[in-house]
């Protein structure tokens, strides 16, 4: 049974990681939102499984939060924003998709080599999931810096939060307070970004971040 538990948690953490790579692959905005929703649902499954294995009831709430907020509400809201504001729907990338995905693989190897020596004492379960979670965080950052579209940067930030939650569940005995604060920080960030975008939309005609730097007011 021990083997089956370990295998399932690895499978679910790996599924969240594969969704991160899928985020790097998408060229269309709606597809990006859908993949993010799938990633959040997989995260909910992973956290729920950890709740079952670790006999930690509060983790069920985290799973439900992830499922409802990040799997349904936020993607739906972002989809409405994109439709209402008629935002340009293809995502321009700074580096090619292949290079970004290969960089993602490099980040995976890097996380494994960083985490494995450190966490050797912590027991088998936490170590691999911590490595995967670190990778998801790094890939979230990679999504943010290789996309020219503000919506995709929000998605990158959110998937970074997903990685943080996965890391937190791996460690036993994480209190609910921290999770609520994490969730609220996500919400606040969402509000900030949303207002930012509305502001951007009013004053300039696009949410392409690169166009913003042209308006920066520096001497060119």
């Amino acid at each position, binding site marked *: 049974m021990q083997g089956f538990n370990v295998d399932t948690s690895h499978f679910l953490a790996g599924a969240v990681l594969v969704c991160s790579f899928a985020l790097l692959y998408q060229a269309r905005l709606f597809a990006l939102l859908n993949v993010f929703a799938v990633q959040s649902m997989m995260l909910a499954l992973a956290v729920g499984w950890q709740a079952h294995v670790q006999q930690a009831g509060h983790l069920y709430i985290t799973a439900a939060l992830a499922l409802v907020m990040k799997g349904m509400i936020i993607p739906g809201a972002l989809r409405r924003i994109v439709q209402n504001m008629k935002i340009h729907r293809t995502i321009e990338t700074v*580096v*090619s998709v*292949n*290079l970004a995905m290969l960089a993602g693989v490099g980040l995976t*190897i890097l996380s*494994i*080599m960083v985490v*494995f020596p450190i966490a050797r004492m912590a027991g088998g379960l936490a170590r691999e999931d911590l490595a995967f979670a670190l990778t998801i965080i790094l890939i979230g950052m990679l999504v943010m810096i290789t996309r020219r579209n503000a919506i995709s940067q929000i998605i990158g930030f959110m998937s970074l939060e997903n990685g943080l939650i996965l890391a937190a569940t791996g460690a036993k005995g994480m209190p609910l307070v921290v999770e609520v604060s994490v969730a609220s920080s996500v919400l606040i960030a969402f509000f900030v970004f949303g207002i930012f975008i509305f502001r951007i939309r009013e004053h300039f005609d696009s949410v392409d971040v690169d166009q913003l730097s042209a308006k920066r007011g520096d001497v060119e």
Partner: protein
Amino acid sequence: MGIMVVIGSCLALFFVLAILTLLWPGIGLRLSYGATMLLCLIILFCAASSLLAGNSITSVMLPIGLPNVGMRLRIDALSAFFLVVVNLGAAISSLFAMGYGVHEKRPGRVLPFYPSFIAAMNLVVLADDAFTFLLAWETMSLTSWALVMSNEEKETQRAGLVYFVMASFSAAMLLFSFGLLAGAGGAYGFDEIRASNPSAWTAGIVLILVLLGAGSKAGVFPVHVWLPLAHPAAPSHVSALMSGVMTKVAIYGAIRILFDLVGSAMVWWWAVPVLIVAGATALMGVLYALMQHDLKRLLAYHTVENIGIILIGVGLAIAFRANGLNAAAALAMSAALLHVFNHSLFKSLLFLGSGAVLHATGERDIDHLGGLIHKMPYTAFFFLAGSAAISALPPLNGFVSEWLTFQSILASPGLAQASLKFLIPVIGVMLALAAALAAACFVKAFGVTFLGRARSQAAHEAKETDNYSLTAMGLLALFCLMIGILPSFAVDALRPVVGMLTSGTLPPQDIGPAPLTLIPFANGRSSYNGMIIFIFLLLSGGTTAWFIHHFASRAIRFGNLWDCGHREDNPLAQYTAASFSQPIRRVFGGQVFRAREQVDMPPPGDSAAAVFKSRLVDPAWFLIMSPLARLLEIATSRTDFLQRLTIRRYLALVFLWVVMLLIVVAIWN
């Protein structure tokens, strides 16, 4: 001892021949090249017998050279193998040159340097002390530089300059490394260096210096920049020697120093820079080659790629040996050495073929060729064999060494270091990508040059070359096939070399499930039999042909090519080299070469031609060489004032320098 005498006299005869052709330029070309070929064959025979005899070591010390050191020469298994490689390539190039050399406009500029070049290469392989090694290395560089400069086109000037600078650079790096190894005592003989135990730091620095020095001569990225300029500029038989043989001599230097001289200090992390540099070289070499439309420059870049593949094998051997996995190290080293031999065969074949094409049409640009398979059928067939061999297609020889390299990559999970366990599969991916892109590049090279329709008058009027050239190319193609279907003989011949370098061996090749099977691991878990696959292919193809011709139809009718309904007579409407590589340029070129394409279409109704411009930036020049050159210029212009001082100031400089040295000596004591 007898072998050494024979080889020594052959080398001396090379120099005699060089002097003769210098003094009497009227000497017959055929005679000169024929004599060279004969001498090479003698040395080849001696070296092969020494190799097959096993672990024999012969050394001799001549009383010339440095005092207390003399000039030492030695033949052991490693030297014997590389002597075989050098002399086989040289013999066949000389045979080719007997027919091709008549087209040389100024033979006096080529004939004296050709035998001395071959002699110098042989001497590098035979050298047993640092002085002889470096003397022979520099002679090799100088004679090949002279051969490159014999070409009278305007691109040769830049090629010669860059080659000169890079050759001096490589000799300097090797000089420093030997200086470090010999230590303060000045023990330059290889025997003494072997016996000394260098510290880890010294050995590490020697690794970097050897990678730069020998690597530059071999064509490692990014110090390969001279290779695509110099190799095409030389006459074709010399290009074959430079690409097929001289680069291998550089590999010999690297292996001799890293595995033999400082082998005792080998640690696992040595494999990391070697593998990274090798993978980058392989990939960059083939990507450069895909962007070329000059046939000889394309082949020169492929040499860079194959040197990368050889170094991958060497790096794997280092990783395995440092971890004590001697059997796996033997496999990796066998793969690398077999690829050394295979590459010298098929690269020489391809360069000789390009020489034949160059002579027949006067063109090196493949966009002006086409349809040559009808005009030069034998050359086309041999070039096809070379292309298939370099693309690693079974049942030819390129596949065997690639298969062995992949098998040694698959043995990597046994390593202890995590970074190596992750790095090696990534390098394997780069190797697979390079191999596949090489096949694409040779479809382009062969397809645009030989297939299709002639794109220019020169291609239309081409004629087949002479019999010497054809015999030389045919022999090489035959060897490619033989090694492909009888690989176990080659692998068995490599046993003494591999055993000397890695203290491990491959399992005996006769324990397989069938004769002539290649077995990399002792428990017989993977195997390859080239002969049986060759027989299967022949049988299945033959029976299919017989069946269809007898029971179905043999009828054939000839008509025009498919032209969508409107007559397509213009041969320029065919795919060119740039068109063929356009998808690859789109996928890879944007990041690697900053490839930008621009099409200027005239407005509708205007019958002016559309213009297509493709802009590529060479990353080695742009990122590394040009900044270095600029830095050098800045530094020299700042210190230029030192050229114009007064006498009093010069004396002051000398005085200050002497005082500083005395201070250093005082502090050190």
